């Protein structure tokens, strides 16, 4: 059961996913963005994002594909470089908070009803009770100047949802035969939790990861606008907050480039996440 279930689950999910047209298109779009981010990581593109030019608000041209900002910076380079920033934030926050949620959720679910579970539930309740932006503002501020302050704040709040789902699933799984069997042959508790049970929640972790990724990218924009986000480098959030001054003067290139780039990625990711959920759980009700 434990060996065969994940396999058939994944292969059936893959079949379903391939047949989902919106899911496939969005997956290709996300992959395209990822390749852009990769070229920046490899130093092949977007490296001139910070270079100040003499040409303020230059229109779209062969030299400046998307025009320039008030400071004469090339908007195309900034948009491209921001893709990397977005993936950095999205991946770091998604992976960390999902891992955190998986560990806490698994412990909480496996020891359901114990003091450990109570403690973790309490922590979740407390974190959920603090309004998100209040918390992020507080963390970002207490870690002043640290470039990862925003990441830490998001990870600390975003893991709770994953934790809740994993806890529920683990409670279901721990009474199943393969767990009983593992227990009967004397597999240590830690191994049961992390090697036998947790892998069976990977479909939840995958979906949660995509959701957190999107949330993180969107939160970055707002935090950067409030001055609590990306500290060095450039991001879509910084571009948009920079563009608020340009927009009132009638220069929209910066705003449109950053907004569109971000909108398309977030939308593709949303559709991708939906298709993934449909493929993994065909009985799920939300379309």
């Amino acid at each position: 059961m434990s060996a065969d279930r994940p396999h058939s689950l994944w292969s059936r999910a893959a079949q379903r996913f391939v047949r989902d047209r919106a899911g496939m298109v969005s997956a290709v779009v996300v992959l395209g963005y990822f390749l852009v981010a990769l070229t920046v990581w490899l130093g092949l593109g977007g490296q001139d994002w910070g270079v100040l030019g003499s040409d303020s608000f230059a229109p779209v041209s062969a030299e400046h594909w998307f025009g320039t900002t008030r400071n004469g910076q090339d908007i195309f380079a900034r948009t491209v470089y921001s893709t990397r920033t977005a993936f950095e934030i999205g991946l770091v926050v998604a992976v960390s908070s999902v891992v955190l949620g998986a560990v806490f959720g698994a412990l909480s679910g496996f020891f359901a009803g114990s003091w450990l579970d109570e403690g973790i539930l309490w922590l979740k309740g407390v974190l959920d009770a603090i309004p998100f932006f209040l918390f992020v503002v507080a963390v970002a501020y207490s870690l002043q100047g640290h470039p990862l302050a925003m990441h830490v704040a998001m990870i600390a709040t975003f893991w709770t949802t994953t934790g809740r789902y994993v806890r529920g699933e683990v409670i279901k799984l721990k009474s199943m035969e393969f767990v009983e069997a593992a227990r009967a042959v004397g597999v240590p508790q830690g191994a049961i939790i992390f090697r036998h049970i947790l892998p069976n929640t990977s479909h939840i972790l995958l979906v949660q990861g995509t959701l957190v990724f999107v949330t993180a990218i969107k939160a970055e924009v707002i935090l950067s606008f409030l001055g609590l986000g990306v500290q060095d480098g450039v991001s879509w959030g910084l571009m948009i907050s920079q563009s608020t001054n340009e927009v009132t003067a009638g220069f929209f290139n910066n705003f449109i480039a950053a907004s569109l780039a971000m909108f398309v990625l977030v939308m593709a990711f949303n559709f991708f996440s939906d298709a993934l959920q449909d493929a993994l759980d065909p009985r799920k009700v939300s379309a």
Partner: protein
Amino acid sequence: MAGLGYLIRRLATGIPLILGVTFISFLLMVYFGPDLSFELVGKNPTAEQIAAARAQLGYDQPFWVRYAAYLHEMVTFDFGRSVSTGQPVRGLLADAVPVSLALTLPGFVLGNLLGIALALLAAWHRGRWLDRSIMAFSVIGMSISFLIIIIVFQLLFSSRYGLNFFPVRGWDMSSPGAYLYYVTVPTLAIVFVSLGYNTRFYRAVFVEEVGRDHVRTARAFGAGAGIILWKYVLKNSLIPIITRVMFSIPSIVIAGSLLIESYFGIPGAGKLTFDAVTTGDQPVLKAVVSLTALMFVVVLIINDLLYRAVDPRVALT
């Protein structure tokens, strides 16, 4: 009385939550927060002056003493005066909270009502083109950043590139006309940003409810879409709806809409909090955090009571 006993028990279970929220917030905002002693003293202060300032701010006390003092302030709900403005904290909150409520409530209500209506429509036509288009538009709406929506709406309604009718900044509630003048664009932005999320959430709830046996029974006895949706489905879905609405209340009152308030320059609770964090205005922060925690517990209790009111299967325990 069973009801009163229940209420007391429920309040008691809320205490660990209040302690947790206040402790974590206190740790972050006060203990790790910025040091204000240098703003109190003049230029080139002496060591004594600095020490006096630190004593005045309570920095020389150990952490636990400061936290205990904070808890005492919370119980009496007396947080003294704001460090940055010198005004009483209670007065500041009393000014800011109604503004935030007036600012966000219309958008919140409209966003939820519209979301519920669209979700009912989508759930009833599940799998057909109407459902698919409503859901596709929801995802598109969910993919647009709030900041982008605010900027675009300001351009459309408040700038010479669009209608140029509504104000770019400011707030005035002195008359209904003035209120409408200032609240319209923020409301539209709030509705737009929340509609996708609301519709998706409520559709998932309604689809599950529409699929239930009792809805099939109602249809088998000749009930039409109107009665089924507005009477049966809606009443049976009240618990998730109430939960969603109730748990949004603390954020609406306290955090307000930080983004809207700072973008439109509206003196609400969100802006008050944000400024307090960035200036390290501890009395204000303490008050805001306490209010949040208390409100959360109150919401939990009211939520429970409402469950009992709408679902006869939930017994008083």
